[in-house]
């Protein structure tokens, strides 16, 4: 195999499975393609109906054949039932050799492992959590897994790197003419933002709903002109309990609280926390606490921010309702409060995946973010981040918006405890690079805060006497001392099972097949 080294020092094969790989060359260094892809032209004449009664009928009408690419959204998260349901039907119909390109795969999709083993699914393009990732790491997938960020996925769909033949959209509410919303019905999930590129660029779009309402439905988030068929079934497409949590509780863990408080200190010290401030964080324990503590500081300093970006949570909604942020831009909702807010509050605005994070667009929302607080599985002394592979080398997580927000935001902060069990989080070299270190400004851990010397905020933050810093190497040394030395190398087989793309479509790293224990 022939290799080239990319700009962050990872050896990238020139070609895998006949797929030519372009090495990552740095931010904005890769030439952009000329045109986006175009979708197939469809025609609906007056009087033609779109309503179908069964999944089987929908699959037949979609023209799905061996070797095609299909997509789904992950807005139902752990409560999704649609993907498993459709694949059961596909398997019965004997269709094989499919490329599965949803916006994410979750542990609830464990039944797909069987279809991978049977060759019904032979390629996967998306972030993967749970048993499917494990199966891929063990070499069960015939082809390759391409892991992209949310923005990278939107780019790939629109650029034609990932052409969607048939897109199945689980719709909490739909009318018979194909207008869809995510805020009403039993399976309400909030925005349908991750499916906007698919709705616009797939050759065939099929909505599946349990909640059919008279035309036209309200709160339309995906439009009739993109949707070819609406399937109304009784069988639930999602389990509400798995789709959203109740109100997400703020952590009581003093370690996470300490880390969150320090994140807020850093944000304040950066000078960004002023009128018009914008911010994104996720739904994890530290992120939620950061959102809450930021709110406290904004209240005390009487600062009104411009927007908070979601993954929205009740913590963020509270800040909107208090007037501490003027708007929420939201691509997905994590709890009931967030869904209610999206439905009722005109300042809570739904955005699509491209609008959120696509680098090949005329402006993604991540580009106007002041600061983002993110997690990590590993960070190395060059600040490269791994969020995909576990300490045993297996693929267990997706990238989400990590690459996009860290690149777009002025100040990107990684907030993590220094150890996960006995595994050090700060290491000499991450197992897999999933976000390049050049996009990371600060690491906040329970054992100290480290600044990236290459960050534009380095000098400004370093000057502040309110914060004591350590170097990233000092943090690594503390971690290694605690756990008894550097980790043993993870044994891998030679076969490449996954490609980690940067959001621009170049390759950051590859993942090899894990050796069985």
């Amino acid at each position: 195999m022939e290799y080239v080294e990319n700009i962050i020092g990872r050896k990238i094969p020139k070609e895998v499975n006949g797929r030519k790989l372009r090495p990552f060359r740095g931010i904005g260094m890769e030439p952009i393609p000329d045109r986006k892809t175009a979708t197939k032209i469809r025609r609906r004449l007056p009087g033609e109906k779109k309503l179908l009664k069964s999944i089987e009928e929908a699959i037949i009408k979609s023209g799905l054949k061996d070797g095609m690419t299909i997509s789904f959204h992950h807005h139902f998260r752990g409560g999704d039932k649609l993907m498993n349901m459709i694949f059961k039907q596909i398997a019965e119909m004997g269709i094989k050799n499919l490329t599965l390109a949803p916006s994410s795969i979750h542990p609830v999709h464990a039944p797909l492992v069987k279809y991978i083993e049977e060759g019904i699914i032979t390629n996967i393009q998306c972030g993967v959590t749970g048993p499917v990732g494990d199966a891929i790491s063990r070499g069960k997938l015939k082809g390759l897994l391409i892991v992209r960020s949310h923005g990278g996925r939107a780019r790939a769909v629109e650029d034609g790197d990932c052409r969607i033949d048939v897109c199945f959209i689980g719709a909490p509410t739909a009318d018979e003419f194909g207008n869809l919303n995510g805020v009403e019905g039993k399976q309400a999930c909030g925005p349908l933002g991750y499916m906007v590129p698919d709705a616009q660029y797939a050759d065939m779009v099929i909505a599946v709903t349990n909640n059919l309402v008279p035309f036209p439905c309200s709160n339309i988030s995906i439009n009739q002109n993109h949707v070819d068929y609406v399937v109304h079934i009784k069988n639930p497409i999602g389990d509400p309990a798995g789709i959203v949590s109740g109100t997400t509780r703020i952590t009581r863990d003093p370690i996470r609280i300490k880390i969150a408080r320090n994140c807020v200190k850093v944000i304040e010290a950066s000078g960004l926390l002023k009128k018009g401030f914008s911010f994104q964080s996720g739904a994890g324990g530290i992120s939620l606490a950061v959102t809450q503590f930021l709110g406290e500081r904004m209240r005390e300093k009487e600062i009104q921010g411009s927007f908070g970006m979601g993954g929205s949570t009740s913590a963020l909604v509270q800040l909107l309702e208090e007037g501490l942020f003027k708007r929420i831009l939201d691509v997905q909702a994590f709890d009931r409060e967030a869904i209610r807010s999206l439905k009722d509050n005109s300042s809570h605005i739904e955005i699509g995946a491209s609008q959120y994070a696509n680098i090949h667009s005329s402006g993604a929302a991540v580009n106007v973010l002041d600061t983002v607080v993110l997690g990590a599985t590993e960070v190395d002394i060059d600040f490269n981040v791994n969020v995909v592979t576990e300490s045993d080398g297996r693929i267990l997580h997706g990238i989400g918006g990590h690459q996009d927000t860290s690149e777009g935001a002025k100040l990107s902060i990684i907030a993590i405890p220094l150890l996960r069990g006995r595994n050090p989080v700060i290491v000499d070299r991450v197992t897999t690079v999933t976000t390049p270190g050049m996009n990371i400004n600060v690491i906040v851990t329970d054992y100290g805060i480290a600044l990236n010397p290459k960050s534009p905020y380095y000098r400004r933050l370093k000057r502040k006497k309110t914060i004591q810093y350590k170097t990233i190497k000092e943090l690594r040394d503390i971690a290694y001392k605690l756990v008894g030395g550097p980790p043993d190398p993870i044994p891998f087989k030679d076969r490449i099972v996954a490609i980690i793309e940067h959001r621009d479509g170049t390759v950051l790293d590859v993942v090899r097949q894990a050796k069985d224990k």
Partner: protein
Amino acid sequence: MKIVRTAQAGTLESQDVLITVQKGKPNTGLVIELDSPSAVQYGSKIQSEIETIVMEFKIEDVHIKAIDKGALGFTIKARTEVALKRACE
């Protein structure tokens, strides 16, 4: 020292380890059965930490089962020592 009974020390809480010490079959030496989320990167370190403590006790045939929940060295060694003491007393 001599093992007179099967004994345990530790818990299954996060960052702890549950060590179970049993008399081994004659001439099997030290057998360690390790179940750890850090087995790939730190399994050999955990094994050697357990070994050092067993050596101090000068016991011949012993079977040790370690169910690890991310314990650091000081905990692995402490739990092994206590389990052995409880097994020998």
